[in-house]
Structure formats: structure tokens, C-alpha cells
């Protein structure tokens, strides 16, 4: 099981802040994971309709779409940040 967490409009579109999921073995990268999530229902498809704008973090560190998900405890998806 891998913990997935969502923030801001990604969270609002998916409709939950977090969930634990078993990732299929063919999901190797963050980009694979986003594509797979988008097939899980309308709310996910909506969240990832422009996958290039969604950012990701693995275990609280920013990662690129080609980052491997193997060994990840917590994977986060969120929009571009607007703090500061």
C-alpha cells in the first residue's frame, strides 16, 4: 500500500485529501501513476486532465514525472505552488 495525498484543487477535484492504494506493478514512475489514477473515475480524470500542470512529491521531496515510485511511502499530487 502506498499513501497518496492531494492538495488544493487536485484534492477538491478528487474529493478526498488522501488514500492508501495498491499500485499496479506496471506503474513505475510518477507519470505512470498519474495516468493510472486518471482511469479510476471521472473525479480523477478531472484532476489530471492537464497532467503537465500537476506537480508531485515523493516522501515530501519535489520530484519530476519520471521519478520512480518504487519504495515510496507517500506520494503527493498538487498544483503549482502559490505560497509566499
Amino acid at each position: 500500500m502506498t499513501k497518496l495525498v492531494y492538495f488544493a484543487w487536485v484534492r477538491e477535484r478528487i474529493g478526498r485529501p488522501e488514500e492508501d492504494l495498491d499500485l499496479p506493478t506496471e506503474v513505475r514512475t510518477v507519470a505512470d501513476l498519474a495516468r493510472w489514477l486518471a482511469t479510476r473515475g471521472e473525479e480523477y480524470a478531472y484532476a489530471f486532465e492537464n497532467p503537465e500542470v500537476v506537480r508531485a512529491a515523493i516522501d515530501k521531496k519535489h520530484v519530476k514525472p519520471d521519478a520512480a515510485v518504487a519504495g515510496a511511502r507517500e506520494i503527493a499530487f498538487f498544483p503549482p505552488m502559490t505560497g509566499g
Partner: protein
Amino acid sequence: MTAPVTPFVAIRAEDFDLAAEVARLTTGRPDVGAVVTFTGLCRDEGGTLSALELEHYPGMAEEEIRRVAEEAIRRWPLTGVTAIHRYGKIAPGGNIVLVVTASAHRAAAFAAGEFLMDYLKTRAPFWKKEHRKDGTSGDWVDAKSADDAAAERWAKG
């Protein structure tokens, strides 16, 4: 000669006290010649905004800001660095973020302060949602490409 500098980083709902945060970096430190502070405040957007709601990624927000602060300490001869970022609902005029940089000389304090803010804007996991005076719960603030460009200025060759 000099003790290692540890940044003071806080992610919290409570407001900060500018004078107290400057005193934290200057009291008993007669080697400090320059202190730069940056305060980011909630604007009312021409009177249309009732509040900004700041969401953050607990844990990662602090870790990421600490990483950026430590990078600033590696790049410039600082005597102290403070970064405080608030979350929750903040009304127009309210404080959102504070960065304080202290150094013997002004150039390092200015550069490090600007660096911290540029990186914080693009790397710290915070998101702003607008609440409007007309009652509509507004949009999420869009990230600005200008902020990405500002952060990229600091990228090393």
C-alpha cells in the same frame, strides 16, 4: 571562527512579530551589520477579497523551507536566517510570510532575502484560495510564470 548558522523556520497559523524576529537575529550579536526583512501581506485586490485561505502540505512545507534556508546559508555569509509562513484564513492587511536575513554586510542580506522569497514562492508547498466579498468562494490563485523566472535567476550554471 563563527558558529554554524541554523535557520529558524516555522509554519504556523499564528501571526509573527517583526521586531521580535529581528531581535532574535541581532540581540547579543555585534557582528551583525545588516538585517533585511521581507513581509508578505494579504492584499484586498481592489476591495473584492474578503480573505485568502492558505493550504499547506504539513511536514513538507517546513522541510522545503528549511532546505532553501540552508542553501542560502551555504551561498552567502549570513549570521542568521528566519522564515515564518502562516497557513489558514488571512484577511486583507494580514501577514502571510516573513523572511529575515542577517549578515555583516548589506549585499549578502539583500541577496539572500530575495533568493529565499523567490524559492519559497515556487518550491514551498502552499496554495492560496481566494474568498470574495460577494460570497463566492473564489478560485485558487494561479502560479505566475514570473515567479518561476525569478527563481531560475538563482540556478547555478
